């Protein structure tokens, strides 16, 4: 079972002194996230947004209790930073960084698995428990405490659909961005399992896109009957052309695999309501609830 967050989750920000790290630390704090420490090697001893900065997580842990980590470290150093969090038994480890070599992601995911650590991302907007805490870069205003869990491979489209859900008065429970890279830690199935057991989640919005077969596997999982809550989906990329990366490193139709059509068909076959427009996901959920 992956580990997610709530208002009590104590978070360290790795790469807190970078511009992205600093900016989002401020926003997360404002949202209510318990940011207790920051880490940037070579910057130990300073403060950033009122948060003490350490050179290493081990040192941060000497004076602070820390549960989870969010990473804004530049791509060449992100693997080491994430492994530091894994070794320090932090969980989840949310990797915001974009542009990490796929070889590093493979290493990270495999080594985290040995340790039983949940890796969210890389190249993820992060995760949020609406109204309590966010470890991510999503705009707070589109989320409102409610019943819908969201899982998304993309960022802004995820906010777009969250906004629709919020506008219809449904609100969100826990929302997780999986990340737009070809190799990421957490997958749809992992989050669906977690949502199945989460009493605060009554329905789920699944937001996929072209590339890979994570949506098809999610559909298979749902068909298997292990997931029993109402679910609606949107798949981006019907208009995409094969062989071209559509922004995300992972969003590419290769040969006959990874098309939006294949994903939509698989989900529909599994009984999932798939919207033609992002707004239809929220409408479908309202009817299903």
């Amino acid at each position, binding site marked *: 079972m992956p580990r997610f967050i709530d208002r009590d989750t104590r978070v360290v920000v790795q790469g807190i002194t970078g511009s992205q790290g600093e900016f989002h630390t401020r926003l997360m704090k404002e949202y209510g996230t318990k940011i207790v420490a920051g880490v940037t090697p070579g910057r130990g001893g300073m403060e950033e947004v009122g948060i003490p900065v350490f050179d290493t997580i081990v040192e941060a842990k000497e004076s602070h209790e820390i549960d989870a980590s969010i990473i804004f470290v530049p791509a060449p150093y992100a693997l080491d930073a994430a492994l530091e969090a894994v070794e320090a038994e932090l969980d989840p480890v949310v990797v915001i960084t974009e*542009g990490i*070599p*796929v070889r590093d992601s493979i290493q990270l995911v495999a080594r985290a698995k040995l340790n039983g650590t949940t890796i969210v991302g890389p190249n993820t907007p992060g995760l949020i428990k609406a109204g309590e805490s966010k470890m991510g870069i999503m705009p707070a205003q589109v989320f409102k405490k409610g019943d819908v869990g969201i899982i998304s491979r993309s960022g802004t489209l995820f906010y777009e659909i969250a906004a629709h859900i919020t506008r219809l008065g449904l609100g969100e429970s826990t929302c997780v961005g999986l990340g*737009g890279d070809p190799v990421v830690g957490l997958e749809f199935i992992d989050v669906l399992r977690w949502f199945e057991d989460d009493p605060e989640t009554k329905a789920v919005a699944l937001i996929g896109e072209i590339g890979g077969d994570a949506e098809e596997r999610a559909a298979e999982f749902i068909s298997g009957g292990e997931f029993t809550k109402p679910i609606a989906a949107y798949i*981006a990329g*019907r*208009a995409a052309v094969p062989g071209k990366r559509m922004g995300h490193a992972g969003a590419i139709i290769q040969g006959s695999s990874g098309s939006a059509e294949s994903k939509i068909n698989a989900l529909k076959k599994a009984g999932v309501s798939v919207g033609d*427009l992002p707004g239809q996901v929220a409408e479908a959920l309202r009817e299903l609830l």
Partner: protein
Amino acid sequence: MKLLEYEAKDYFRKYGIPTPEGCMITDPVQARMFIEKLGKPIVIKAQLPVGGRGKAGGIQFADTPNEAKNMAAHMLGKQIKGLTIEKLYVEEKLDIVNEIYLGVTIDRRNKSHVILASSEGGVEIEVVAEETPEKIIRHLVDPVNGLRSFHANLIAKRLGFKGRKMRQFADFVMKLYSLADEMDAELTEINPLAELEDGFIAADARLLVDNNALFRHKELEDKLLSSLQGELTEREMEARAQDLTYVELDGDIGIIGNGAGLTMATLDTVMLYGGKAANFLDLGGGATPERIEKAVKFVLRDTRTKAVFVNVLGGITRGDHTAQGIVAARQELGSVKPIVVRMAGTKEKEGRRILKKAGIETLDSMEEGAKLAVKLAEGS
């Protein structure tokens, strides 16, 4: 990034992978010199970053120095798939007993490297996968334990090699995997990998390096742009030079969004309402007014574009910045092409105010925006 055959073979040699004797040439005289020194028939191959060169006449043979020179002269300057042949690779012609396929790539589902091998070499592996999938050996490499000799032995065995040949082929597999791993290859393949009487040799060589990993391979960074020639259209190359995430499509509505998923969804919505996108342009997160101006200009300048739809859901990206960028682009180009803006989120009001003043329509929802953009493109 896609390396050319001769560049890939340089790396192959560095990793001890047997390759035929060969060299890259740019002058027909060099082809003659090469065959004279070699004293054996040669093959002459066009060095272009596109597939299917064989069928397009990009692979030729020569038995004599004169033939070599004439053939090289004939090939240089010719065009294949819109690209001009500027480099050739001349190489000894092999006595091939059998053609094999060997490749290493990324398995997204299993989150690891996968080694693919097939006794059906010389054919595209996708075709083999389609027609005779049982002829492809797949080995997933455990990321923590790596590839070991016994894995390679088993791959060789499954291909039907025994004894000395098994060990020779296994050695090949080990070396190709080392290269794939250390060079951050998204894909490396040898097709065909030639079985000779007394061993194996890489008759061809393909190597695609993960662009995100170029910081580990500084020597490749300079070559990146030229390597994209076969992959990207001219307009895409231009966008890249301007640091824009841009994909060219064949419609007439320019699409700009922030975030890959949202931009894709925008294309889809436009399509749903009967329009056709001219492009995909993802601003990414937190774009500055300057970046937005650059993006809008880039799309407006496209003569195919009849209308532009800018879809920005503000988080880090600010509405006022977006508006400023759009207005500046339009003013500077003096463009009268219709622009539809959907704006929500951070500094939305400020943005709308700026756009209204400039006479640009803003809408609340992507759906409405897409509908309007389609209508405007049709009407223009």
